[in-house]
C-alpha cells in the first residue's frame, strides 16, 4: 500500500494505525507561530467503530489501508453469518456479527447495502438510508385519538422497533430512515 503524509490526510481516507484500519474524519493543522507544526487528526477505527483523536508531527506518514466500500445485495442470514453478493460478479461475502453490528436490524433480503471490505473481508455494513419494512406487531391505535404526538412503538419484520403514528397498523409497510431510526411514511 502507498504511504500518505499529514498534508494528504483528508476526510474519508483509510489508513493503517497500530495494526488496525481507520477512516480519517477530520484533520486540523495546529501550529504555534514560532513553533513545531502538528496535525490533530480525528479517526474512526473501522473494526470497533471507536472514534479517537491523535496528534502527528506535520510531515509524518501512515500507510493507506486496503479498505473498499462495495455495494452488495443482502442475501440471507444462516443463523451465524450474514451473506452478501456483488450483483455484477455474483461474488459472495459472509460477514459476522461484529462486522454487521447495528445494521442487522435493518437488513432485508435483496436490499442493496454498502459493505466495507478490509483486505478482502467484510468489516462493516451500512444499510440503505431508507428501508421499507412490514410491521409485525403494534398496538391498535385508538380511533379519533390524535393527541399525544409521540405515537407508539412498532416491531418490524427485521426485529427493529420504531415509533410510528397511532394510525399505522400491523401488516402495513412503512419507510424508515436508518440513519436516525425514524418513521418516514406509509408505503402503499
Amino acid at each position, binding site marked *: 500500500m502507498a504511504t500518505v503524509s499529514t498534508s494528504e490526510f483528508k476526510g474519508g481516507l483509510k489508513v493503517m494505525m497500530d495494526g488496525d484500519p481507520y477512516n480519517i474524519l477530520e484533520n486540523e493543522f*495546529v*501550529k*504555534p*507561530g514560532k513553533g513545531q*507544526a*502538528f496535525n*490533530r487528526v480525528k479517526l474512526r477505527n473501522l473494526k470497533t467503530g471507536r472514534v479517537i483523536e491523535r*496528534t*502527528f508531527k506535520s510531515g509524518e506518514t501512515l500507510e493507506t489501508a486496503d479498505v473498499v466500500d462495495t455495494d452488495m445485495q443482502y442475501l440471507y442470514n444462516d443463523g451465524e453469518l450474514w451473506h452478501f453478493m456483488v450483483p455484477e460478479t455474483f461474488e459472495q461475502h459472509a460477514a459476522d456479527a461484529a462486522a454487521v453490528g447495528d445494521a442487522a436490524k435493518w437488513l432485508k433480503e435483496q436490499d442493496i447495502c454498502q459493505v466495507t471490505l478490509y483486505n478482502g473481508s467484510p468489516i462493516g455494513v451500512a444499510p440503505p438510508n431508507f428501508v421499507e419494512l412490514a410491521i409485525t406487531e403494534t398496538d391498535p391505535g385508538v380511533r379519533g385519538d390524535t393527541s399525544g404526538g409521540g405515537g407508539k412503538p412498532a416491531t418490524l419484520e427485521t426485529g427493529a422497533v420504531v415509533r410510528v403514528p397511532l394510525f399505522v397498523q400491523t401488516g402495513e409497510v412503512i419507510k424508515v430512515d436508518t440513519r436516525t431510526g425514524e418513521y418516514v411514511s406509509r408505503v402503499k
Partner: protein
Amino acid sequence: MTDGTNWMPTCPLGALRKRAKLLAAVRRFFAGRGILEVETPLLCRSGVTDPHLQAFTTRIRLPGARPGPELYLQTSPEFAMKRLLVAGSGSIYQICKAFRNEESGRHHNPEFTLLEWYRVGYSLFELIDEIEALFAELCGEDLPLQAAERFAYADIFERQVGADPLTATPAEFAARARALGLPEAEALCGEDRSLWLDLLFSHVVQPRLGRGRASFVYDYPACLPSLARKRPDDPRVVERVEVFLGGLELGNGFHELADADEQEERFERDLALRRRQGLPLPPKDGRLLAALRAGLPDCSGVAIGLDRLLMLLARADSIGEVLVFPIERA
C-alpha cells in the same frame, strides 16, 4: 490553463467591508499616537533562519542577465523594520503581507496580513497595554472584550498541564500528557523539551485562552527564545509575549534582542538545527547584524495576524471566510 471553477471569492462581500473598516481603524489608532506607517520590501535578500518557518523563494534576474541569487518572500517584516529603527525612524508600524510555506489549514493561509509595530523606549509590559488598547478599539461593540488577563508562561502552564515547564523532566511531561488524553505525545516528543512545551501548550493551554478577553502570556521559557531578550534577573525566561483571543494565537511580541553577537549565535544555532533536519539553509541577514552592531534603540515590538482578528470579528470558523481568495483559489 488553470482550473476555471470556483472563481468566486470564498468570503461574503460583507467581509470586504469588515476588512476595510479594520484597516482604517488600525491606521486611525496609530495616527492618533503619532506613530509612522512604513513599508519595507516583501522580496528580501536573506530569509528567516527559524527552523519552524519555511520561506517561499524565487530567483532574481536582472535584465538580460542569467538568474541571480535566491530571494526570499518575507515571513515577517521584522528585520527590515529593525534596520529602520537603527537608522533613527522612531516608533513605526506596518501593515503588510507575509508568506509562510508549509502552513495551511483552518487558521493558516500561506499568504496572510500582518500588523507589526515597534515602540522605541517601551518595555514589554507597556507594549502589552498598548496591544490591549488597540484590541479594545478594533473590537469595539462588534466583539465586546473584558479587561485582559496576563499570565506568566510558567504559571498558566502549570495550572493547566500540571507540570512546571521550566523544571519538569520529559518523563513528567509524558505522565501529564497521558493523563490529559495525549498518550501519543511521548513517542512524538521524546527528550525534546521545546517540542514538549509546543505540544502541551498548543493542545492543552491555548484552547482555553482568550475567552471573552485577550490573554497575554509572557516570560517564555529560555528554550523558546526566538528574537526576545533574556530577562536580566531570571535567565531561565525571555522577554517574549504571545496574545490569544478566542483560543486563537493572534500575535507574538518581544522586548527586542539588541545584542548583535547573541543574535548571530541564535542564527548559527537555528542553522545547525536546520542542517540536522535537512532543511534549506538561508544566508544569515548580514545587514540586520550590521545594523544591530550600529545600535538598536531599546524597543519592544509585536506582530498581530489581522486575518485571524477579522475571523473573530466576523465570527468565522475558518480563515477562508475572511479572505477573498485563499491559496486554493489564488
